[in-house]
């Protein structure tokens, strides 16, 4: 299952932040609630070997850019196989968000969703080409 992550969007600049904030960091306006899918690309990550009080070392921390644009800070169980640009799922365990490799099922779902979007685009282009051809004929006659 792909989780959803609560976020907020600035009505002025459209910046999306997660978790949600009351005000846009760059504009003094109230943000609007939004929801983002818990999937995205790793922007950067680190492993902290001297974790602060209350955390266990080694502590894996990543910034993940969620689909929809918000960058999100989360933990990981491990960083083996993780690279900048890796596609990861982000999900909450006990109210703490973790990144992990996308499972086969999640990948399939994402693939269909993307092709779905691409399909719509192809349809739209085909429709507009059709219209132009139709109008051209009308003008010619």
């Amino acid at each position, binding site marked *: 299952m792909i989780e959803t992550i609560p976020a907020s969007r600035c009505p002025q600049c459209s*910046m999306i*932040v997660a*978790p949600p904030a009351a005000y846009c*960091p*760059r504009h003094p306006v109230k943000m609007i609630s939004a929801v983002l899918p818990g999937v995205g690309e790793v*922007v*950067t*990550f*680190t*492993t*902290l*070997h*001297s*974790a*602060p*009080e*209350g*955390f266990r070392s080694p*502590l894996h*921390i990543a*910034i993940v850019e969620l689909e929809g644009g*918000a*960058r*999100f*800070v*989360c*933990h990981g169980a491990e960083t083996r196989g993780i690279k*900048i640009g890796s596609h990861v799922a982000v999900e909450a365990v006990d109210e*703490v968000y973790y990144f992990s490799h996308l499972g086969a099922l999640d990948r399939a779902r994402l693939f269909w969703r993307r092709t779905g979007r691409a399909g719509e685009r192809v349809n739209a282009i085909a429709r507009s080409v059709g219209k132009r051809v139709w109008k051209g004929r009308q003008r010619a006659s």
Partner: protein
Amino acid sequence: MRDVWIAGVGMTRVGRRSEALQDLMAEASQKALGDAGIDVPDAIVVAAMNPEEFVGDGNFASNVATYMGFADVPALRIETATSSGAAAFFAGFAEIAAGLRRTVLVVGGEKMTHLATPRVSEIIGRSIDPYERSYGATMPALAGLITRALIAKHAATLREISQVAVKNHANAVLNPYAHFPHAVTLDEVMESRVVAEPLRLLHCCPISDGAAAVVLTTDRTRVRLAGVGQGTDTLAIRHRRVLTSFRATEAAAHDAFAMAGFGPERVDLAELHDAFAPFELIALEDIGLVPPGKAGSATMNGETARDGRLPVNPSGGLKARGHPLAGTGLAQIVECVWQLTGRAGARQVSGRVALAHSIGGLATNNWVTLLEAA
């Protein structure tokens, strides 16, 4: 706007100090006032980042002013996290430039080595966005995230980053005020303990005690304050689109050069905020001291060494002189003034224009200050 001049400077030795913070600040203040030949300043600006947490004292401007015998002198405290010293310098500058005061003592410092390292990290970490902090993000963790992005972008190699530490330690050997006046080799840096991948221990500045002070005046002296600029950015680093350069530094440099009326090509030496070694490389490019993408190679080929084209951190920087938080921004200015007036001893370099760059928090409140020999 009135011209503002540096009348005197002074600082304590940086390192593990047994004295109270008030004693360190008094020592730096007396040295600066003595250097200026001024008994009592018109006003005092105090920089301290976390005195409530580190030493348990609040109302800190009055506390320090009274402690050193200036209970009757108006004092205020300035705080912008790790750049508090530079911010206090700006406040002193503004008071004089506006014609409100004729002489201002600016003093900053921190005392923290008496606490255990995890406690110190936690207190400094309070300057980080609360959500990111709730995920265990400390300053080294955020610096690790930035360093990984920097290396992935081929903006710097780990070798170039490590060379910053080697160079700054070499400079500190000649600085009697430095926390770590000893040299390190490239191998030692690259093989030191991993702190926050890919950052290692010798890429990080130490926890230091110390204080520094500057006296500003309306009267002409040997060093003029040519320009000051402040730049800011989001508290959370996840709210930034770019991690490999700091908007706060770019904006601060832009404003400082605009005030000075000249560009980075006039800068002869610089003290840059190398709390983490890669930050020196980022600052070199953000300020425009080297062309984009050239900070690493400039460091490797010695351009930023003490005998290079543009000596950077002749004091040893935060890395090796040490980083007494609110004292650091002022310690940088003290070093610049000593260099411009030929009083830097064995580490003396030549130059007429010096630049100091200070980062507050994870580059949320940065300052660039330009000083010019008259």
